[in-house]
């Protein structure tokens, strides 16, 4: 063991040396300091004097999902403004998600926001919420089941309509042969997006499934598809993090295809501005979180319901180079 302990000491010494060196080895470009310099402080104070209600949000987001992070941010900011105690839980397993909704009911919350990626699994527990008199708003997915399950309204993007917007946009750009890159096999929303795009696209479109948790493999798969069929002139990715990877794959394969994507992030904004990306379809996740909380508040405060029994659509909004410049700052702070 003596040798092991010496090893620990050596590692510690080296670590200390590196930490010391890091103070000297500063970067004069980029980094946190640059961000801090650029960012103005924003305060989040309640704008109303209604009682401090508790609203729970339970989604089907997996760990570390960029999209749901923005939804959550929207919800949190609305909660701060509306004097709401906001609680959030998520799990990509429907059974666990239902359990979290049950927990919220047990805590007698004043409102529940829930996403219905697998509606059937949540049917029973939503009936319990209705019985307990807790207002429910569904977000993102489940527009078809929302009213049936007793929700006040649904806020989200219809995936098929979003897909159709992509097909139309591709037509306008004179594309003939497209690939729809799905990074999660078996995700209904992804299938609907590609199916919607296929419906309105006048050229041919194929689906390509990639391993979303393994970026090098995503790149290799897209590269392989482009090499197998050089006539492909459009690649559509379904998530923002996959767009820069598709651009790399396209460059490596020597293809002239245009890369387009669903959702936004900082690199998408950068690539839109530089022209490396054609367009991005935003379903405005911030709005899904913000509106859900705000509408629950409105219902509690004023018995208002929005949508008239129909889903309130938050997208699709097509973002191109022009809008990207304007939105870049908002994307950086994580609200777009």
């Amino acid at each position, binding site marked *: 063991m003596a040798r*092991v302990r010496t090893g620990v000491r050596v590692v510690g010494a080296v670590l200390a040396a590196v930490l010391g060196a890091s103070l000297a080895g500063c970067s004069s470009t980029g980094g946190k300091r640059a961000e801090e310099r650029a960012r103005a402080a924003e305060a989040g104070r309640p704008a109303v004097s209604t009682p401090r209600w508790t609203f729970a949000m339970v989604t089907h987001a997996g760990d570390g999902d960029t999209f749901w992070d923005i939804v959550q941010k929207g919800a949190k900011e609305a909660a701060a403004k509306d004097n709401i105690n906001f609680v959030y839980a998520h799990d990509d397993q429907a059974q666990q998600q239902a359990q979290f909704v049950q927990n919220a009911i047990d805590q007698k919350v004043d409102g529940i926001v829930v996403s219905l990626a697998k509606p059937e699994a949540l049917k029973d527990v939503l009936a319990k919420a209705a019985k307990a008199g807790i207002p429910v708003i569904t977000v993102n997915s489940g527009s078809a089941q929302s009213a049936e399950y007793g929700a006040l309204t649904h806020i989200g993007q219809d995936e098929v309509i979003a897909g159709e917007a992509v097909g139309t946009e591709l037509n306008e750009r004179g594309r003939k042969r497209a690939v729809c890159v799905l990074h999660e096999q078996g995700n209904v929303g992804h299938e609907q997006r590609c199916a919607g795009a296929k419906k309105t696209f006048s050229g041919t479109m194929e689906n390509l499934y990639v391993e979303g948790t393994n970026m*090098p493999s995503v790149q*290799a798969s897209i590269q392989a598809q482009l090499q197998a069929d050089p006539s492909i002139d459009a690649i559509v990715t379904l998530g923002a993090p996959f767009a820069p990877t598709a651009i790399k794959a396209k460059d490596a394969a020597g293809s002239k295809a245009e890369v387009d994507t669903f959702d936004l992030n900082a690199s998408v904004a950068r690539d839109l501005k530089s022209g490396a990306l054609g367009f991005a379809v935003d379903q405005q996740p911030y709005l899904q979180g913000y509106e859900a909380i705000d509408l629950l508040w409105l219902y509690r405060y004023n018995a208002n319901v929005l949508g008239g029994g129909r889903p309130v659509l938050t997208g699709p909004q097509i973002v191109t180079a022009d809008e990207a410049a304007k939105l870049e700052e908002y994307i950086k702070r994580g609200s777009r």
Partner: protein
Amino acid sequence: MSTTAPADGLDERLAPTSALRKLLARPELGSVVGAVAVFVFFSIAAPSFLQASSLSTVLYSASTIGIMAAPVALLMIGGEFDLSAGVMVTTSALVSSMFSYQMTANVWVGVGVSLLVTLAIGFFNGFMLTRTKLPSFIITLGTFLMLTGLNLGFTKLITGTVSTKTIADMEGFASARALFASQWNIGSVTLKVTILWWFAIVAVATWILLRTRAGNWIFAVGGGADAARATGVPVVKTRIGLYMGVALCAWISGQHILFSFDVVQSGEGVGNEFLYIIAAVIGGCLMTGGYGSAIGSAVGAFIFGMTSNGIVYAQWNPDWFKFFLGAMLLLATLLNAWVRKRAEASK
């Protein structure tokens, strides 16, 4: 053992063996046959598979698995698993990126800190294993879960979102990218630097395994730790060394991901540990330890690269993608086992 000496009076163990026999005894022979079979299969099934540019894509795909499969193979020969290898790659990329960003430090500082952190995780795995005597399955499963949580928790805590901020505009990025993620265009072919890393790692691993004392230790520890200890093999040191080897390669792999994709998502890497183990097993490593080779892991990674991309080149209905992948891997492994059995029988 036979008591009758051969006619020429030499001990049978010292009798010269033919080159063919030597070849048949190699652990990777089965996987080479499998690789040739997969290669021929896709050459016929997919017209674009044989293009030089396609092969470079396959090689890139194989290299990203192979860089990790080689140390994992060594670890398996030493009789242990590492289920944390997949997320450790992501951890290493996250640490470099976030350290550089938060400290506004030169990118190379983050790269150095990441090396230390990753090696420390490898050391932790090996140290816990030898200290607690728990199975490596449990120890590294614990590390896997902890790292998955830390990756997400720290990223969220520090950056406020689930992916890192871009560090592409920071000092040192260009030179680090040159080392970890550069590429050369030769006509229509793009060769990635990971392929060089891969070959180098396999060469070093093979040298360690076959030409050094440490190599003997690895085989001995995997064959039977108690017997090895009795003959004076430093079992603890060997095991910790093997886990740190995996960590070192996870660091290389992680830096590649960081510098080629610029932004790292905290949820990545989960499940990749199995790909490394699969590549090592196809390459002839036994699940029980004591047998296998580093070159075999490279062939296994190559089979994986051919299969996952060949399916795309063949333009098969993608609904069946995972099924094809699984069937190909199973067939390759069966063929591998069959060839090995024949090889052993012919001895």
